[in-house]
């Protein structure tokens, strides 16, 4: 017993994290490496695998659905993230003051991002419904034309972006709110004495002081937006046609609807590089600023 304890103390540096490291190797590193092996096979999931070298990569690069997926992935992200940052900043500035019911409001702000994504997606799907949905009723009440929302190939991604903005603007707002509370109030007082207007102190004090938090929000949201699955799959399954089929939805369907394991693995390698590439790129810009 004593000797076991001694042994443990001596190697604590390795033994404490060991179980978690093993789990990570087994469940994450292993599968990622396995994808590279799988990507060299043509494997219809219930059949026999056949080695085909780099053919999957060649096929992916000439597959219009792959490029369609890339386009949709970036379209979705490029539309959602900047809007979330702007709205999130506005909400953060708006709520960065004392007011009655502050605790309750903070709780409400948390709800969209913790609620089960499938439930959120279902409710938005009902609200988007072209003939019976409440959103078209709102449009009509404002004397605006009805919309097909997610049933329209041109509007499906902007509609899904609305859901993503609703779900994740709160997180951006809370990140920025935490940063705003760290800005010394003396800065604003000094600016007021110097005769700065509200806008001026926003541009010259608020924004520079919370720049680091804005970049963190940008990085986190960009990475998560590139990976968005639940909302898209539940509401549209990539449709109508392939109009909202992002890279990960296409990879999912290749693997689990068309049962092409090798092809799906190849798509997933591309997805991995897209996400990690964007992460590294954004991180570099963070260092350089």
């Amino acid at each position, binding site marked *: 017993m004593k000797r076991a*304890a*001694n042994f*443990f*103390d001596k190697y*604590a*540096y390795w*033994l*404490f994290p060991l*179980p*978690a*490291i093993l*789990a*990570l190797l087994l*469940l*994450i590193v292993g*599968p990622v490496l*396995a994808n590279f092996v*799988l990507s060299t096979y043509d494997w219809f*999931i219930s059949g026999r695998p056949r080695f085909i070298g780099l053919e999957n990569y060649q096929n992916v690069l000439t597959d219009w659905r792959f490029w369609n997926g890339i386009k949709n992935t970036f379209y979705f992200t490029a539309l959602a993230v900047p809007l979330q940052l702007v709205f999130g900043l506005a*909400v953060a500035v*708006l709520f960065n*003051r004392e*007011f009655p019911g502050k605790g309750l*409001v*903070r*709780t*409400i702000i948390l*709800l969209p*991002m*913790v*609620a*089960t*994504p*499938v*439930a*959120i997606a*279902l*409710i938005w799907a*009902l*609200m988007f*419904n072209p003939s*019976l949905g409440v959103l078209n*009723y709102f449009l009509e009440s404002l004397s605006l034309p009805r919309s097909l929302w997610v049933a329209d190939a041109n509007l499906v991604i902007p509609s899904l972006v609305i859901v993503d903005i609703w779900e994740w603007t709160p997180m951006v707002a*809370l*990140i920025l709110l935490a*940063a705003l509370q760290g800005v010394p109030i003396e800065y604003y007082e000094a600016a007021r004495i110097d005769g700065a207007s509200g806008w001026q102190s926003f541009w010259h004090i608020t924004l520079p002081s919370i720049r680091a938090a804005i970049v963190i929000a940008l990085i*986190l949201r960009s990475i998560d937006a590139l*990976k968005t*699955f*639940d909302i898209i799959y*539940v509401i549209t399954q990539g449709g109508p046609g392939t109009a909202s089929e992002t890279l*990960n939805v296409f990879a*999912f369907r290749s*693997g*689990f609807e068309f049962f092409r*394991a090798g092809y799906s*693995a190849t798509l*997933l390698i591309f997805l*991995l590089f897209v996400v*990690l590439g964007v992460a590294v790129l954004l991180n570099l810009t963070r260092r350089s600023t």
Partner: protein
Amino acid sequence: MKQQVVKASAPLSTEQQRAQALRAKRLKTLGIYLLMAIVLIIMLFPFYWMVLTSFRNQVDNTSPIPVWFFKPTLANYQNVIARNNFLEFTWNSLVVATLATGLGLVLGLPAAYSIARFKQNGLALAILVARLTPYITYLVPWYIAFRALKLIDTYVALTLTHLIVGMPLIIWIMISFFEEVPIELEEAAFVDGASRLGAFFQIILPLSAPGIVAASILSFIFSWNQFLFSLVLSGPNTKTVPVAVFNFISYGQIDFGGLGAAAVLITLPVILLTLAIQRYIVTGLTMGAVKG
């Protein structure tokens, strides 16, 4: 004479100015509250609509003009629970989320302690990278491996995969809790002859109990919400609630009330748990970028 006029009028004008400033300030405050109200209404509306839909009958739910006032019915809830084995799916979700969180604690707590105490930043970074990697990347190899091991549609497969959701959150939250435990307490225990493992169990863990509770709840919530893994790896015996509800939409004609009721039933536990640990939610979601 002139001076007197100035003196007489000066207080009056400042008083007017003050009144005007006060009015402007009140107007501004009113505007701000109005904007706040609009933001909150937008955030709450889908939830409100979900609850409303769940208590309305199909005729009211499919009326082209929304029916705002109606006699609430419980029929939708009864339908969902009776017709769709909802309780069984809830049980599956509960089992998987609990097992995954338990395993996440067993593996994650020592790792978090080790990162905090021995400054193993490389490991911390590895866990961050794991968080950034799309979950779907692991899914095809997992499916093939679990199928070969005959583990599809078992709690084992779901627990192991849900571990990937919960463990990083647990580690990330606990690092900062463990860092706050004064190292002197541990050193004093070592002087008294305690082993490191003994100090970990008798000093570190009890002192970090609030953090452990928060981390467990967060891990539970995210496992409960997990859709993708269960979609592929579960089956008739282990189907979790999100997948059950997703299957619900493909039943031909849309049962609005049923969907609303199902959505309320999945979301309710999450919201209740959120109320308990709201301080840590953002810390967990941002992987420690923001301290709650």
